């Protein structure tokens, strides 16, 4: 009942052309969507993403302390958010700032993102410590809270520019 395909060679050629165009278009799209603005904008985005990651980690940690979240879900959440901070750090690290002001901003951002990563290390160690030893979950939360404050300050600074 169903017709079998009867393509002409020209139609095949067009199909290949269309496929090539589609690949090119996707590559161009990936390039264009990956493009970003200057140092300030990149730092701003990195700080926002990291703030979101730290806030998520703090909620997961609090829920774990309150017995609302399983250890598996809490540690997965922390791993996911640490990855987000790493991505932000890598973005900032790869910037090529043109002015002294931008170089200072990059350095400040890297310091704050390092503080975030350290906060995550404490929080993850706290989750892995099941014998009530150190660091505790509240130590992890404190470390993340410190990182969150530093991010807020930097966010304000970037926003002022």
């Amino acid at each position, binding site marked *: *009942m*169903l*017709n*079998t*395909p*009867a*393509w002409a060679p020209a*139609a095949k050629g067009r*199909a290949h052309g*269309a*496929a090539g165009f*589609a690949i090119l278009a996707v590559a161009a*799209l990936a390039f*264009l*969507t*990956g*493009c*970003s603005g200057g140092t300030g904008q990149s730092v701003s*985005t990195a700080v*926002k*993403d990291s*703030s*979101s990651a730290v*806030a*998520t980690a703090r*909620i*997961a940690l609090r*829920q774990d302390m309150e*017995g*609302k*979240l*399983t*250890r*598996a*879900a809490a*540690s*997965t*959440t922390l791993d*996911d*958010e640490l990855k*987000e901070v790493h991505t932000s750090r890598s973005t900032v690290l790869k910037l090529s700032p043109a002015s002294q002001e931008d170089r200072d901003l990059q350095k400040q951002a890297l310091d704050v993102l390092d503080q975030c990563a350290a906060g995550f290390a404490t929080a993850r160690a706290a989750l892995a410590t099941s014998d009530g030893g150190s660091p505790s979950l509240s130590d992890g939360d404190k470390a993340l809270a410190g990182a969150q404050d530093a991010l807020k300050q930097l966010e304000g600074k970037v926003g002022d520019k």
Partner: protein
Amino acid sequence: MKRLLGVALGILTAIGGFVDIGDLVTNAVVGSRFGLSLVWVVVVGVVGIILFANMSGRVAAVSGRATFEVIRERLGPRAGLANLAASFLINLMTVTAEIGGVALALQLASSVYYLLWIPVAAVAVWLVIWRVRFSIMENVTGLLGLTLVIFAVAVFLLKPDWGSLAGQVLAPSVPQQETAWSYSYYAIALFGAAMTPYEVFFFSSGAVEEKWGVKDLAQSRINVLVGFPLGGLLSISIAICAALVLLPAGISVTSLSQVILPVAEGAGKLGLAFVLVGIVAATFGAALETTLSSGYTLAQFFGWSWGKFRRPAEAARFHLSMIVCLLVGIGVLATGVDPVLVTEYSVVFSAIALPLTYLPILIVANDPQYMHEHVNGRAVNALGMVYLVIILVASLAAIPLMIVTGAGS
């Protein structure tokens, strides 16, 4: 009584099967960034998928043939090829995203790294497609997917300010920290998530698998008209949960682990268990549907023997093509690409390719040669034309918006 049970089961599986990784991620992202100001898009998307699925289900029931077969025959191989290329590539992206979703949900349950779960999930999908009967496959995943109702329960447990929520829904506006461009981009993503083409191909091919006839049209209509809107409410619950817990904390959703936090906040560990079962079932069910849809589209276009109602040996190319799709999905995920990112792109590309799948179905549903007296009525056609315009606008605007917003970032 048996018929009533059949209708109830159909509705329940339609609700449970409505949500997939695209709906989970996109609704959570939108809720965490835009609150409830984009709920209207879910409503538009649900009406669209009802219209779309209803037409393709009717085409299958009346003609006894799946939509893709009819499209190819009615519009010729060239139009069919454009349709095939668009649908198949998006299906492949969606297969990849759904398998990644299963793996991410299993990681949340076990803390075993998701990349290790990917081959397990893919083999499980293949085994179910190979061995399990179509109706059992559909009903079990659909019913287990109903546990996602926990999102709606969590909304009540979180004790929201209902007035404020209603205000956001009824007077939608672009939040201060967002731009009109990103608002429009996510509107299209949400629309694409609700109207994913694979759902329609699966629905119409499923009608052939289950040997629907004209007498089954009423039941199919009820499933769609009742099940899909309730599924849409589930989607909105996901957005509300994110708007209540994540938005005030300044969290933009980028991972599946963030999507479950509002449920844990409201319903604790029991809620967490429900949501994890629901996510695994929903993504696994959708992985089955998208894998099958990939096989359906290819087989129906090339005229291969297809269907789960046939033994695998009698539909060898159909089964082989699905195995290849699963292997491609595994290969893509093995590169370490983020499944959530794949999901975000897949819903937008769904919107981009939607005219290619929607228009042929609209044409065939109006062709008396295939549909006899069951062609679209005036009201359906009027709505169909309105949606054709919406779909075209969304499709044309998606790529420029993707570039302007840096894919929504």
